[in-house]
């Protein structure tokens, strides 16, 4: 192997092969996947996210949430995803077509979040959990995000979003000054709106588990 051009041709075609196979073929196969029209419901799924949730997705991106949380449910029988209640069905490619950036994730230091909006629908729970995960999940190793909250003087009425801190926690952490409240910043509001929007609570024909046809007898 002393000929430069020959070596070059070889290395060119080696990568061209996988580039055509993995990147181009998949792009052609399902790079323009469309939503599914559910006749029973009379609407298209998946649905486009709200503007607030779209902004929250950017907060999720900038804080690096995907390094500990996946967003994909594996099929029943492969891993414990459905048994853990992370989703009623497996995730399929069509679920992701409106996501400008797909956060499938490769790590589950924390639980999967594909359906967190269905599993934990309380915004207050999410605010407390983001402010200090120990409040809702003692023993968790999740990072706290105190910088997504403002501790401020109540002006006029209390904020509807003010965090319902337990009294002894507030006392211990010096967050119990009278006339003050702990409120989420706009970024926290957007992030929680995004988390609540994460739910694939609709069916696609391709997401139903595959049932192998019965071989014995002719009964259907």
């Amino acid at each position, binding site marked *: *192997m*002393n000929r*430069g051009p020959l*070596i070059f041709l*070889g*290395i060119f075609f*080696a*990568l061209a*092969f*996988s*580039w055509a*196979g*993995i*990147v181009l073929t*998949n*792009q052609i*196969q*399902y*790079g323009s*996947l469309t939503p599914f029209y559910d006749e029973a419901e009379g609407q298209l799924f998946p649905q486009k996210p709200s503007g607030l949730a779209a902004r929250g997705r950017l907060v999720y*991106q*900038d*804080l*690096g*949430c*995907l*390094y*500990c949380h996946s967003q*994909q449910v*594996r099929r029943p029988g*492969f*891993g*414990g995803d459905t*048994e*853990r*209640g992370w989703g009623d069905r497996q*995730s*399929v*490619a*069509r679920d*992701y*077509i409106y996501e400008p*950036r*797909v*956060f*499938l994730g*490769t*790590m*589950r230091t*924390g639980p999967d979040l594909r359906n967190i909006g269905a599993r934990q629908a309380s915004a207050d729970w999410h605010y407390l959990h983001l402010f200090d*995960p120990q409040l809702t999940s*003692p*023993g*968790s*190793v999740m*990072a*706290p*995000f*105190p*910088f997504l909250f403002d501790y401020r003087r109540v002006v006029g009425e209390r904020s509807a979003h003010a965090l319902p801190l337990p009294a002894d926690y507030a006392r211990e952490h010096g967050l119990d000054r009278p006339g003050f409240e702990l409120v989420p910043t706009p970024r926290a509001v957007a992030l929680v709106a995004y988390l609540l929007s994460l739910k694939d609570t609709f069916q696609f024909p391709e997401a139903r588990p595959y049932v192998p046809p019965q071989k014995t007898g002719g009964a259907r």
Partner: protein
Amino acid sequence: MASDSSLAASLSPNTPPDVATRAELSAIDASTRWPVIVFLVSSLIWLLVGTALALVASVKMHTPGFLGGYEWLTFGRARTAHLNSVVYGWSVNAAFAVAFWLMARLSRTRLRHPGLLLIAGGFWNLGVTIGIVGILAGDSTSIEWLEIPPYATPLLFVAYALVGIWAIITFRFRRAEHVYVSQWYLLAALFWFPWLYSIAQIMLVFAPARGTVQALVNWWFAHNVLGLWFTPIGLAAAYYFIPKVLGKPIHSYYLSVLGFWSLAIFYNWAGVHHLIGGPVPAWAISAGIAASLMMVIPVVVTAINHHLTTAGSFGALRYSPTLRFVVFGAVNYTMVSLVGSAMAIRAVNEITHFTHFTVAHAHQGMYAFFTMVMFGSIYYILPRVLLKEWPSAALIRLHFWAAAIGITVYWVDLSIGGWIQGVEMNNAGIPFLDVVRHTLPYLWVRSLSGVLLTVGHVAFAANVAWMLAAPRPAGATAPTLFRTPPALPVAAK
């Protein structure tokens, strides 16, 4: 530099070692001096930055309140800044330096226009700096291995183009008749990386593909950065330094051909194994698993070639720092690749996917293999371009043992912890927080191993700084070895 002539000897056993060869190699080394120094010093600075960020991220994993109030150091950002500074800062800078030093030597030609490479070094490090600051400030793309924000990537691309074009020019001017196996790997790596990087940038950042096609592009890129960029550079260095230091030819030329082409064909399909069980076409996953298992061929072939070259000369590991680091890396390459193939099997992947097992695997690949080979290469190259010897054998010894023990504890510990985590996570009867709690001891041990790695890096940095600052000796000097080999009498200073 008693072993310089063995380059010629390892290519063609009939070449007599002569003074002219040595003088020629010395002139070639001298032509690479400034680019090598610039890239290696930058890589070392990034290694220290990356190590500090790694410690912060590691401690946060078991003690989440640590520095919890600082947004720019929150886990998701510190971890990401760590990855990008050790990958694009340390590893790529070191790979560049080793690649063009090797390319010049093996092509037996002076490095032309080294000034061009200094400009490339400036662009590259400016790009990485802006990228890391951007990640810490919250501009990460959150695409694994491509987190550097889009406003910094064009700088990286310009730098890369300069290095790549330069390498092809050096190869074109080659005077050696024989193209050595290391050169195949270097040429391939230098050609593959920009292709991977530009496609990934276009299809993920500038004009994103729809849905989970992104995930396929992401892992086609991210796995190939390891397989088609760092692995070939690491193997090129191992293929050069093992025979070089031992002064004997590589075990088998034909095995090196087989190893090279089978790696080229199979590795670039393997990345899809990161998506097993995920919402992408099943055929793509199956192809990825098949390719991952086929990787056993190049790995075993390369292992035979490296280890049978070393076999019979294990005694040399007692003396040569370069050989000890590189052989440690080569042994880990064999292990990590076989584990990697096993991890692609569905039944194994069901457990190891989404766990610390993968983190252990990544560190065994990028550190126990690639980084250790780079350390060994630097111990060989730097004295030759600076015309000075390493000031302290004790610091090299400290570096080796801290790094070798540190990374071995790291990957063994996290592999066990990750396996337990995976088994427990698949058992829905165990509450999730219990699974988390059971990983804590392993995460603590990981932090301790990180402290050990830090000690090694500081020893290495101190030795390099000392060497740069020391005056150049007037006459010939003996190489700094762990201990003086009995068969090789060393000239008195």
